[in-house]
């Protein structure tokens, strides 16, 4: 049995997130197709790959065909940070094939490409765009067919030890294009519209010899170029954090609440704070981060409510300025869950944060592009799992309308995903709106079952007594306990 298998080098693509999606990088000497409709980012991806792969010893050749006028292409591509003019004519060579392609003879095109490849000995070859090459193909019966051209090009490039990319326009997936069979890799770029939002997505439909991450991966194009948001590694050990040790506990900043939780929030737990608007969820979240900072810990906050950080309180604002609490910028339109998860985990790693706040899930859902809202629960579950993998303790808030006919803890059925739940609620007593809270769930730990009054003052949340002598609190209109006081205070208990 031979052990000398061909070793396939994997090239780093220079596109953040793409190596992960590809399953470890781009196989060296592979023959790849970058396809997608106009405006999907094909040329940008090709340029970004080219500037990453090219070296003076193994330059990159970029063949431009009829498609985009090269002047325009250079004009716009150089706006990206990765475009380094100094590499042009050193490690990067542009070669315009317009004149040869105009003849419509693919044999001539191939001959020209081969001649250039022989001259420069490139490590990477790009042909942009493939579609226009087809359009340039005349009715000449003597010219070789497209399939033959592709096969010969692929074979030649492999034997010349070059990684090759064909950039193709307008190709549809249902079109049984021979290129798909010949190519080793097939990277499909899309823009997926829903309602008024458009989300860019990338799919690796094929990549020979390696395990790619299946599915549509969102990406963004900014001045830095393309950034692919690979799903946050699920391979990371999530099990240990699913059964976290409950002996190390984090203080929430509300001493009485810690006592109710059996000594604080166990490290690595996720805590859902659910309650109606104005009940003090965000204040509890801020207190949680501030208490962490007091203990020398760092935190990260993803705030989806559209308000400045000043509105979160001066202490927290100071911590943010001092970089003790990182803020995940969630203002970009049409976010994807993977993007948020990626931003969060990057920030958590940067600050070595042990406390994370997501405020609130309702805002989070609104910030997502409409196309992701349909499977919000799945997405949220992925996010929680990815955060659990970081080992940080997570506090999420969730807007929950008070319903006095049933008892619910989260609007998304997310309760099962979290390790602990605190519910806040309004009750009416003596013509006053009072707040109560309870620890509903604390996985693997004893906790209080008390329903406690609390109020919010300048110093934060103050937990008071249980509501004395009343029952039916969760119905919102508590009545006096029957066995103590027969006389009602004017509230009908139906």
């Amino acid at each position, binding site marked *: 049995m031979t052990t000398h298998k061909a070793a396939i080098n994997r090239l780093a693509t220079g596109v953040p997130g793409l190596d992960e999606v590809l399953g470890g990088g781009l196989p060296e000497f592979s023959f790849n197709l970058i396809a997608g409709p106009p405006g999907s980012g094909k040329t940008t991806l090709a340029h970004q790959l080219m500037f990453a792969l090219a070296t003076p010893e193994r330059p990159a050749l970029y063949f431009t065909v009829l498609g985009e*006028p090269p002047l325009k292409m250079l004009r716009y591509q150089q706006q990206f940070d990765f475009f380094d*003019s100094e590499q042009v004519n050193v490690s990067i060579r*542009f*070669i315009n094939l317009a004149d040869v392609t105009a003849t419509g003879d693919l044999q001539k095109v191939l001959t020209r490409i081969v001649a250039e490849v022989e001259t420069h000995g490139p490590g990477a070859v790009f042909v942009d765009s493939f579609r226009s090459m087809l359009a340039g193909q005349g009715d000449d019966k003597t010219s070789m067919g497209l399939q033959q051209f592709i096969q010969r090009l692929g074979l030649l490039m492999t034997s010349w030890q070059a990684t090759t990319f064909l950039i193709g326009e307008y190709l549809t997936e249902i079109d049984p294009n021979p290129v798909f069979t010949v190519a080793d890799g097939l990277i499909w770029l899309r823009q997926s519209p829903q309602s008024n939002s458009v989300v860019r997505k990338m799919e690796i439909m094929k990549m020979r010899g390696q395990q790619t991450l299946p599915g549509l991966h969102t990406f963004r194009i900014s001045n830095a170029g393309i950034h692919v948001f690979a799903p946050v590694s699920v391979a990371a050990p999530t099990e240990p954090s699913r059964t976290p040790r409950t002996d190390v506990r984090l203080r929430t900043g509300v001493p009485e609440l810690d006592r109710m939780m059996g000594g604080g929030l166990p490290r690595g737990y996720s805590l859902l704070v659910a309650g109606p608007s104005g009940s003090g969820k965000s204040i509890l979240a801020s207190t949680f981060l501030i208490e962490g900072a007091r203990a020398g810990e760092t935190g990260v906050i993803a705030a989806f409510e559209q308000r400045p950080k000043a509105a979160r309180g001066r202490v927290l604002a100071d911590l943010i300025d001092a970089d003790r609490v990182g803020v995940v910028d969630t203002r970009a339109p049409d976010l994807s869950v993977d993007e948020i998860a990626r931003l969060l985990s990057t920030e958590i790693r940067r600050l070595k944060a042990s406390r994370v706040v997501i405020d609130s899930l309702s805002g989070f859902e609104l910030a997502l592009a409409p196309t992701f809202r349909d499977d919000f629960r799945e997405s949220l579950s992925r996010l929680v799992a990815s955060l659990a993998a970081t080992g940080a303790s997570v506090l999420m808030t969730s807007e929950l309308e008070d319903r006095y006919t049933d008892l619910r803890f989260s609007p998304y059925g997310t309760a099962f995903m979290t390790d602990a739940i605190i519910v806040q609620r309004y009750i009416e007593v003596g013509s006053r709106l009072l707040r109560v809270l309870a620890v509903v769930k604390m996985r693997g730990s004893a906790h209080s079952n008390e329903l406690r009054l609390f109020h919010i003052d300048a110093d934060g949340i103050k937990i008071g007594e249980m509501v004395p002598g009343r029952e039916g609190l969760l119905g919102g209109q508590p009545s006096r306990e029957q066995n103590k006081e027969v006389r009602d205070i004017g509230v009908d208990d139906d």
Partner: protein
Amino acid sequence: MQSEALRIQATIADLAAITDDARHIAEVAASTWREILAVLSPVIGPGGVIALYQRSLYVTRTAYPCLAAVQEDPLRSGEFAALQMVLSQQTSAQVVAANGALLQTFSDLLANLIGVSLTERLLRSVRSLPPSNPAPQDTST
């Protein structure tokens, strides 16, 4: 600042300093343009280079009316024969000035489109001393 365009202009001015032969200077100017075409064609396509050259002629014409007479044969525009013909009929000082202005306009136009740094990077490959006796070049591509 367009240092590469100035460098190319300077080589022609240097030539004018040692000879008054306008025909020879015009020949060198045309060969420089062929060199520019050869250097830029792979990157922006021969069509792109010629289009920019025609535009430069049009713009520079106001300052140097003699350039109005330059009508390149569309099929052989890469030879810059008409430019060479027109320039050879001027004084050597005029050749240097008119061609210099044309080069500068061309370089400015290119920089406008693809940026100064990339323009400089590309024009750097234009040889600084064109052959005084231009070898027949294959410009058929």
